[in-house]
Structures are given as C-alpha cells and as structure tokens.
C-alpha cells in the first residue's frame, strides 16, 4: 500500500470500525451514550484525516481486483482521491461529526438501546457515504449508493413505532429504487459497450474520442435516472419531504447535506462522460431548473418547518443539477458544498426549535427570537446564506450557478432559477418572520438548547460566513465568467423576496390569504403537491394492487379450484365405491372368479 492512499483509507475505515464494533458488541451498543461517544470519536479522527488529505491536496488512485476474470478483474474496489473527492470527504465527515455531537443532546431522551442503534446506523451511513465518494468505478459507487439508501431507510424509520415514519421510510426506499434500476441498467450497458467500470479508463476513452458507442445518450440517461431518484429531482422528488419523519439530525445529515447530494456528486464525477451527450445535459438542466421552481412553490405554502426545509433542499438540488447540466459542474459542486453547510445549519437550528417547543408547525410558533436568541441568530444566518445574500456562502455559489446556466444559453432554465431565487428568499423569510418574530403563542416553555446542540450550530454558522468571505476574497474562478449584471440581479431578487415576506408576514400590509385567493389555482395545486403524491399512490394502487388482486384471484379460484375439485372428486368417488366392500367373502370370490373369466376372454380374443 502506498502511503498516498493510507490516509483516505483511514478516513474510510474508522466509521466502519465503529459500526462493526457497535453492531457486533451488543452490550456496548445498548449502553447508549458511550456507544455514541465511540462513534463520535471514530468520526472525529476520520474528520481530522480527511482534513489532512484535503490540506495536502492529495491526488491518488489505488484499486484492488474484486471480481476476477481471465483478462484482468472485471470490477475493482479501491480509493480515488482528487480535489473533488477531497472536498466532499471534508464536508461529509464535518457535517457527520457535528450532527453526531448534536444528536447526543437531541436524542438524549431516547432509550439507551435506541440511541445505540441510532449511532450504529450513523456510523454505517458515514462509512457508506465515504465509500461512495472515494469510489474509483461505477461498481463500487453503486454498492455504496445502495448502502446509503439503506441507511436512509433505517434512519427515516428510526421511530418505527410511528406508522407515518415507517411509511415514509418505505416510500423513500421504493422511490429511490425506481431511479436505481435505471442506474444499474445504465452501468451494465456502459460496461458491455466499453468493457470497463473504472472512471479513469472511461475518462481516458472519452478524452481519446474512443467512446462513440451507439446509444451512449440512452446509457447516460439511464445513469442519470439514478441521480434523479437519489437527488430528489422531478418527478421522483416526492420521497424527500416525507423523509422528514426521521429525527431532525438525520434530516440534516442525510437529507440535506450528504446523501441527497450523491446524485449531484455522481454527475459531477462522471462529467467527462456526460459532456459527450449534450442532449442529456440539456435535459438535466431543464429538469433541474423545473425541480427547483416546483419545489420552491411548494415550500411557499408549507406550514411544517422541516418540510419547508425539505422542499428548499429539493429546490437547491435542482440548482446543482441545473448547473451540472449547463456544463458548469464546478459551480454546481461549489453550491453542493456551501449548501451542505448552511442547510445542515438550518436543519439543526430547526431541530433546536422543535426540541424546545415540541411542534413543527410554524404557525404555532412565534416570538422565539426572545426565548432562544442564539438559535434565532444562527437560523437567520442560514436563511441569509440560502437566500443568497453576500457575503455569505450561498450568494457566491448560487451566483456561479446562475452565471453558468446563463453562459450555456439556457434562457428557460435561467429564468426558472431566477424566479426560484426570489421564492427562496420569500419562503425562508416567511419562516423566520412567522416563527421567530411573530406574536408569541402560548405553548411550552421555549428555552435555549443545551451547549451540545448550540456548539455545532455556531460552528456551522461561522463556517458559512467564513467560506463566504473566503470566496469573496479569493474570487472563485467560476463567478468571474458571469456577466456583471448578475450579482445585482441576484441580490435584487433576494431583496424582493425578503420585502414580500416582510410585508405579508411581519408588517401585515398584505394579507397572505388574499394573495392566496389571487393565485388560487397555483395555491391549490401547491398545497396538494401538484397531485404527484396522489398520482403515485394511484398508480401504485391501480397497477400493483390490481396486478396483485388478479394474481390473487387466479391463485384462489383457478389453482386452488382445480385442487379442490380434484379432492372433492376423490372424496365422492371413495364415498360411492366403498359400498363394493360388502365384507362377504362370497362377493370377493365372485370378483376373483369374474376377473379370471375376463382374463380368459382377453387371452382368447387378443393374445392371438
């Protein structure tokens, strides 16, 4: 093993070791808090290693054969580190570390056994996510892709006694699987066309124009389908809002900062391949922009603070995808990183609110600024970053995305994304005004969260600010290309959204109900999530249940029917034939004599 990959391997191995320890040693897991500390210690060292890897700007690849074959291994496992993976490693380990520390307080009331289970899943998730990030080929990526999906399922259903959580977990699992089917078919097709799963080989071939495979567009589209499911793109975005049934730290880690961005990461990672099929890229951009807009409208009418954030995540994922589709994947990836920071911050702050007040409904909150000023401040920092206000991190990445899409001459997606920027500012400030500055409602005794929770919040807020300032000073390469009118435009849009939210929810100048009345059809549709959930439920009921019923009918009446008829016939025949058994020896002799006679006749007639 070269020392080059020793550190990345360490990053990968530690969470796995923690998972193994907690999973195998039951008594340790059932202690709860100590189990959590084991997991946190592992992830902390892992984070330090990831930071070192990132600081050294390590670029290395090392693979081991996995599926042996005559002409070299078909598939390999290994690690591939480059700037992309390095940044992702740091993000994943950082957010995971903070979330795990935060969870210690947030889930402090859980039974020790449940808490241990939680940290077991968390460790497994971090390991899977890191494995996905470090994957040097499609096969390893797919394996870890499914593993993170599994962890997502387990953690959404953490409170599995609640029917809603169990349902949401199954829904998330199924809907992402829908995309994964496309993903694996695409991978295998790509392999049968090129003979390799390895990214490096594929990129070399792409570079040398040796990838003129017929049907490459279809293959890449299928692979993109995996990202549609995982990154909650339209029309497979419906699972993400429901995934909010899981504990809030899980939402912050898996459904905001890391796992859902796996799709974006995959598209960014395989960007040289996608670059060969511009039509698929255009589709990605349009779908991304449409997703962003659609989710933003739904966020505007949502009353559940976590669901608002979930829709906002879908919306921002749309941004990233649109950037990737526009050929500006560095901008998309930058947005992924900054979004990971401030969305985790928002979720954790929302978690602090929920922890203190015990409700998700923003209209039952209010005046929280006075009760929990620190949480309010960090939430506002996150909101400003998400709305794209300089000099916070979100501003630069969002502007880079918009610039990239504009440069690609995708006017339609650009307009949708611009409108989304306005709506983003609107719905986020709506939450801020209603929940933190509105009139206080009676209900609970809101109090500041314990330090274990506030620490991660402050750290994330400072990081959001610091990254923004760093981007402002360093001047990211991406945003230099953008036209000069873009920064004022994006700030202007955010301001308009802010003013609208202020006028409607703080000042009371415009009654929200009247706005809703004016935009009645849109309001109606958005509140019903554009009927997509209903559509899926209907399709599910119609097709799957219909098919099950048909097969059930065949089984019950055809297969069982034949058997029942046969047994009934046998029974009847036995009933009728038993009277032959008279019990009289003479009758039996008669039968024997008659039989012998028949044999004689047969012998005479047929034996000739």
């Amino acid at each position, binding site marked *: 093993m070269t020392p080059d990959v020793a550190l990345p391997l360490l990053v990968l191995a530690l969470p796995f070791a923690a998972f193994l320890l907690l999973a195998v040693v039951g008594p340790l897991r059932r202690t709860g808090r100590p189990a959590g500390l084991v997991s946190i210690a592992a992830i902390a060292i892992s984070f330090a290693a990831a930071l070192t890897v990132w600081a050294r700007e390590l670029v290395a690849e090392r693979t081991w054969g996995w599926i042996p074959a005559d002409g070299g291994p078909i598939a390999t496992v290994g690690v591939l580190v480059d700037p992309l993976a390095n940044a992702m490693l740091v993000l994943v380990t950082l957010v995971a570390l903070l979330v795990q520390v935060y969870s210690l307080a947030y889930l402090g009331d859980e039974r020790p056994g449940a808490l241990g289970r939680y940290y077991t899943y968390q460790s497994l998730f971090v390991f899977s996510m890191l494995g996905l990030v470090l994957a040097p080929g499609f096969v390893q990526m797919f394996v870890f892709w499914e593993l993170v999906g599994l962890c997502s399922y387990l953690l959404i259903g953490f409170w599995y006694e609640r029917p809603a959580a169990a349902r949401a977990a199954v829904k998330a699992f199924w809907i992402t699987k829908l995309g994964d089917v496309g993903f694996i078919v695409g991978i295998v097709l790509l392999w049968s066309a090129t003979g390799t799963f390895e990214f490096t080989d594929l990129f070399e071939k792409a570079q040398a124009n040796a990838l003129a495979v017929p049907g490459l567009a279809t293959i890449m589209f299928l692979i993109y389908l995996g990202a549609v499911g995982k990154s909650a793109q339209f029309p497979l975005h419906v699972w993400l809002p429901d995934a909010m049934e899981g504990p809030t730290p899980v939402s912050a880690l898996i459904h905001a900062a890391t796992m859902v961005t796996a799709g974006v990461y995959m598209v960014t990672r395989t960007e040289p391949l996608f670059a060969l099929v511009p039509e698929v890229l255009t589709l990605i951009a349009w779908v991304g922009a449409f997703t962003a807009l659609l989710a933003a409208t739904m966020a505007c009418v949502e009353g559940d603070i976590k669901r608002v954030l979930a829709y906002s995540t879908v919306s921002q994922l749309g941004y990233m995808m649109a950037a990737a589709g526009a050929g500006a994947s560095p901008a998309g990836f930058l947005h992924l990183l900054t979004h990971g920071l401030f969305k985790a911050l928002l979720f954790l702050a929302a978690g602090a609110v929920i922890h203190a007040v015990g409700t998700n409904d923003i209209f039952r909150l209010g005046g929280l600024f006075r009760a929990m000023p620190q949480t309010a401040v960090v939430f506002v920092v996150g909101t400003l970053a998400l709305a794209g206000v300089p000099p916070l991190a979100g501003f630069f990445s969002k502007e880079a995305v918009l610039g990239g899409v504009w440069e690609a001459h995708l006017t339609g997606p650009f307009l949708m994304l611009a409108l989304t920027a306005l709506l983003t500012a609107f719905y986020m400030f709506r939450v801020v005004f209603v929940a933190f500055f509105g009139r206080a409602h009676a209900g609970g005794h809101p109090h500041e969260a314990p330090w274990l929770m506030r620490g991660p919040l402050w750290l994330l807020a400072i990081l959001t600010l610091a990254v923004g300032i760093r981007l402002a000073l360093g001047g990211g390469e991406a945003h230099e290309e953008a036209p000069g009118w873009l920064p004022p435009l994006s700030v202007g849009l955010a301001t308009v959204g802010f003013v609208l939210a202020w006028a409607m929810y703080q000042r009371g100048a415009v009654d929200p109900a009247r706005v809703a009345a004016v935009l009645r059809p849109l309001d109606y549709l958005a509140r019903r999530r554009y009927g997509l959930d209903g559509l899926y439920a209907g399709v599910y009921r119609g097709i799957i249940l219909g098919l099950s019923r048909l097969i059930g009918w065949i089984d019950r009446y055809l297969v069982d029917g034949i058997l029942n008829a046969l047994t009934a016939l046998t029974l009847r025949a036995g009933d009728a034939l*038993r*009277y032959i*058994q*008279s*019990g*009289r*020896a*003479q009758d039996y*002799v*008669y039968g024997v*004599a008659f039989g012998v006679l028949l044999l004689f006749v047969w012998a005479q007639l047929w034996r000739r």
Partner: protein
Amino acid sequence: MIGLSAYLVLAALMFSIGLFGVLTRRNAVGILLGIELMLNAVNINLVAFARFHGDLLGLVFTLFTISITVAEVAVGLAIVIVIFRVRRTVEADRLDLLRW
C-alpha cells in the same frame, strides 16, 4: 372311444357347478361342498391328461390332491364349527365383519 375333450368338458362343468355353489350357497357347509366339487374337477382333469398322455405323474398328483382335500375339509369344517359356536350361525351373508 371317448375323446379327451369329453373329460375336459365334464371337468369344466363340475368346476362351474362348484363355483356356482361357492358363490351362491348361504350355508358355510354348502360352500365347502362347492369347493370339494371344484377340486374334484381338477382331479378329473389330472387323471384324464395322465391317461391320454400316458404319463403316470398325473395320477400321483391326483393322490396328493385327494389327501390334501381331506385335510382341507377337516380344517374347513373345524372352522365352521368354531364360527357356529361363536356366532350361533353359519349363514355366509351374516358373516360380514370385514365390511366397511
């Protein structure tokens, strides 16, 4: 000269009459008599073949059969007497314990 077939026809007739008796007599003693007739039909066959083929082996067989028949009748009657003691009847259609 009476041919072989005449003996065979006589034997077949006796056999059939014996069988008829076995099948129709209600009295167990009558059934035993039917069996006797059937066995004697076989004896006639054996003797007739021995005579016409000039082979004495058939006669030897017949002697065997006759002695075995005597034994069989003795055993059969003993069984009938035992049945009578137990069931107070020797009517064959009353002896239907093997029935379903």
